[in-house]
Structure formats: C-alpha cells, structure tokens
C-alpha cells in the first residue's frame, strides 16, 4: 500500500522478521521436542506418541491429538483453552490421521517467553517437534503474525508492544512449499500452488476487508521464507538417537 516506511521500535523494516532459531531433540525422554524462538518469543514443544487408546468421545477409527498449553506464568484460563483448541485443529489437519487408528499423540507446549506472535511461534515449534518425533505428516504448517497499522500498511512479526498499539493483527498459518523431485505438472484443479491455501486464520481487531487480503499476500511471502528456514534447519541436524522411541 504505497511506499510508506513504517518506523518500528527495534529498527526493523515492515517486512523484516525477527531472528529465527530452531533446535530439536532437546528433551531426552520425549519422543520428539523442539524449541522455536522468534526474537524474545520462545516456545518449547514436546511430543509423546503415538500412545495406545483414545480419550472418551474421540473417534477410535482415527488417531487423535491432544494439546496441553502451559503458560509462562499464571493459571490456565480461557486464553490457554482457546490456543489449545486452535493448535489441536491445526495439527489435526497436517497429520495423517488414518495411519495409526485408536492412538493418541500428545503435544505439550511450554511458553518460555512471550513478546508477541505467540500462537504462530507455538505452531512452528509443534511442527518441528512432530518432525523430530517422526510422526507422519502431510505437510508442515508455517505460521506468521501480520499486523495492520492505522495507515493501512502491513508489518510482519510484531512485538508485544507493537501488538498492543496497532489497530488489528492476524495470526495466519499456511502449508509449507513442497519441493518435489519430479518436475511439477500443472494441476488440473487450478487452485494455485498448495502453499496458497490457508490452514488457520485468527484475527483480532477491526480491519477493512481489502487490508485482510493484503495481510494474506504478505503472510504467504514471509511463510515461504520461514519454510526455507525450516527445511534448512531440519536437514542440517543429524537425526537424533533412533533407539530412544518407546
């Protein structure tokens, strides 16, 4: 929306993300674990599973996912329950639920630091932990927070101070871009590449409809970069001790 430069408190440009860091295989008793940090927002995710049996009320013909969200301070309230539900449904869409029926995979998310964009950081950490645990996935979910300032310009990855000041922000999660060995055949469905679909979208604050679609565009472009980072970090680390499962 024009060439307005936005002044951000930490000197980043509108399109610049905070430094990303991802380390896997940190917890030795968990089947998979990952720690994902975006600036000062740090989340640790641990995966236990698949374990036998499903909870009462869940469909036993499919695998089920259980998410436990632990905040950094304070008691568990409605915000944590909401994040648990959003994370559970996001991860249900990327896991292949029919491979191990009647099992439960638990993901425990512990917040170490909250400086804005907490839910996207948790989604990224959970995906990295699922890969570390070896759970079969359809694709990864790559998440980002896009903020909308009063001038209508979109800033990426706002800090907590910025989130409180801006008019509206959106947490978006997209599938990661596939890298296939075979040359890509143009898809008959004309849906566009798979990374254009939205897995999850949660918005706060009022925004004009046009600005939401701007956020989607910027979010997709940034997720392509995050998905590159994800791929590099997954390839570079040597797979952990293969005998540690079960």
């Amino acid at each position, binding site marked *: 929306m024009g060439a307005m430069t936005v002044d951000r408190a930490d000197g980043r440009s509108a399109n610049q993300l905070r430094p990303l860091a991802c380390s896997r295989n940190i917890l030795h008793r968990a089947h998979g674990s990952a720690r994902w940090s975006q600036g000062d927002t740090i989340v640790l995710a641990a995966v236990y599973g698949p374990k036998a049996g499903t909870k009462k*009320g869940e469909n036993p*013909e*499919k695998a089920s996912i259980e998410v436990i969200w632990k905040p950094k301070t304070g008691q568990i*309230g*409605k*915000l944590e*329950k*909401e994040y648990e*539900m*959003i*994370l*559970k*449904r*996001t*991860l*249900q*869409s990327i896991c*292949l*639920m*029919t491979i191990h029926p009647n099992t439960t995979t638990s993901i425990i998310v512990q917040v170490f630091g909250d400086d804005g964009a907490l839910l996207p950081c948790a989604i990224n950490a959970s995906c990295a932990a699922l890969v570390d645990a070896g759970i079969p*996935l*359809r*694709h*990864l979910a790559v998440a980002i927070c896009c903020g909308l300032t009063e001038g209508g310009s979109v800033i990426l990855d706002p800090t907590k101070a910025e989130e409180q000041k801006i008019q*509206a922000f*959106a947490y978006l*999660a997209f*599938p*990661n871009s*596939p*890298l*296939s060995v075979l040359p890509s055949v143009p898809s008959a469905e004309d*849906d*566009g590449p*798979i990374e*254009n*679909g*939205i*897995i*999850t*979208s*949660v*918005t*706060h*604050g*009022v*925004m*004009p*409809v046009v600005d*939401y*679609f701007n956020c*989607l565009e910027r979010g997709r472009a940034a997720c392509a970069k995050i998905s590159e980072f994800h791929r590099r970090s997954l390839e570079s680390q040597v797979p952990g001790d293969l005998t540690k499962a079960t």
Partner: protein
Amino acid sequence: MAAASTSGSGRDIGGSGGGSAAGEMEVEAYRRLFPLPFYERHLLDSVRPDARPLHRARDTSVVLGPVASADGSALVKIGDTTMLAAIKLEVMTPSADAPDEGSLAIEFHMPPICSPIVRPGRPAEVAPVISKQLSDVIVSSQMINLKELSLISGKAAWMAYLDIYCLNADGSLFDAALLSAIAAFSHLQIPLVSLSDDGKVVAVSGDLLEDESTPELVNKERKLLLHSIPFSLTCILHKKYILADPTAEEESIMETSITVVLDSSEQLVSIYKPGGPVLAQTSTVKDCIVLTKHRMKELQNILEESLSAMEVV
C-alpha cells in the same frame, strides 16, 4: 514433503463398499453408517438433507425480554440452536486507570441440557473458547462505548454481567450466541438510580421521582447506544462446497469451519478458521465474506422487527 491429500474421513470409515454395500438399505441406516457419502450425494445436487440450498441459513427468530428479572434479555433460535442471553447491571467503583468507564463481563455457559455430549462432570471443550471469542468480538467491534456505563466519574459505574446459556446445541453456536448478546443489549434498559444521603448509589423505582435527583443521575430509563453492530456467519468447507450455517451433524462430519464477523460498516471484525483438513483459498474466503454480507442484512431486519414489536407492546 510433497503435497499428497487424501479425501475426507468418510471414505475410510465406510470402506470402499460405501456406495455399493447392500444395494437396498434404509435411508436412516445409510445416514448413520456412511455419513460422508450420504452428504456428498446431496451436495452433488446443491442441496442438504434438510432441503436447504447450500448458502441459506436456517430460520432465525429473536424474542426480547423473556427473563423479566434481568435488565435486558433475549432468546434467539437459529434452526434448533437456542441461546438465552441475560444482562444484569450492578453498581461498582471503576478502576483507577479508567475512572469514567464501566465494564463488561461476558460468560458463555453450556449446561448439560444443551447436548448429550455435555455431562455435569464433563464440561464442553468449546464453551471457554466461544466465551473468549465472544468477548473479543464484542470488545474489538466497539459496539458499546464503556463511557456510557459511567455514573459518577471515579466513584460509581455500571458493571454489566452478560450471561449466555446454550439451551440446545445444534451447530453454529457462536452465531447464535453473538446474536443473542446483541439482542439483549438492544433490549437493555438501564434502571434509575439516585444518590442516597450517605453517598451510596441506590436504585429508584419509576414512581417515586419526588426526591431530589442530582445532575449525574440518569434522567430517564435509558437505552445503550449501540454503534457498529457485529454480525457473524459460520460456514463449513468441504472440497469445493461452502455450506452456510451448519447443523451439529454437518459440523461433526465435515470439520473445517470458517466464521466471518462483519460490522455494519462492512469492516472485518474477525475471520476465524481454526485449522481443519480443507485449505481455504482466497476465492473461498471472498465467497464467505459475500455470504456474510447477505446474512447481515437478514439479521438486521429480524432484529429491527423484534425491536419494533417490543415497542408496540
């Protein structure tokens, strides 16, 4: 990580013989055993089992004032989903950092009456989520100016307790709850208060207006002025289809839902899509926004009719 998408859940559950198993089978049995193929057969004809076209919402009715003891109340039915909202006002001291603002407390309850899956020891998982979504939408849409709830700056202000009870859960819970909250606020009548001799704020009944009223009192029973009112529509996505206003059965079979909330100036208050197997493309989101705009006009008409019916009585 090449993209390989498998189809919806029903295919594996029903087995490959879903269509051909036992050529003659009762419709109800087929509906229970193979729910997804049952729905897909209807979707091919662009209709749903209850004979609704894909984009039409269920019949909606709003009744204002069913709870006589509350300051504002409303009963909303969207199809079979029934929500009862009630507002009670209480005088309290405002906080130091907002001395001339009242406050709102919004709570959503799902008592066991609403659905067989909710039992007294097993509260519904969606209840706190919907409760938080409702307070986020109502606060961020700025429908209510909290300064209107103030009585005496720094000393007394109204605290509005909004409680929404789900009496029957049949899909689209958030839509019905939001509509009932808005209807209750439009029905709300703020009671008269006066300052007693020891500085306390006490309620006054309408007949006894002989005592001296100090200027900071409400002069007549007042209604809250509602600014940009938010309206919502939940849609379910399945392959290429968009189904508006799902029932509970549709929500459990096709798990991807997207809730769009628009306010009366057609700005986006919220787009809520919490995961789900189907990925939403930009065109799908645009279609959902258009459907929500249509629904908003229907809901505005229904709300105005029920308000004018109240005034006639």
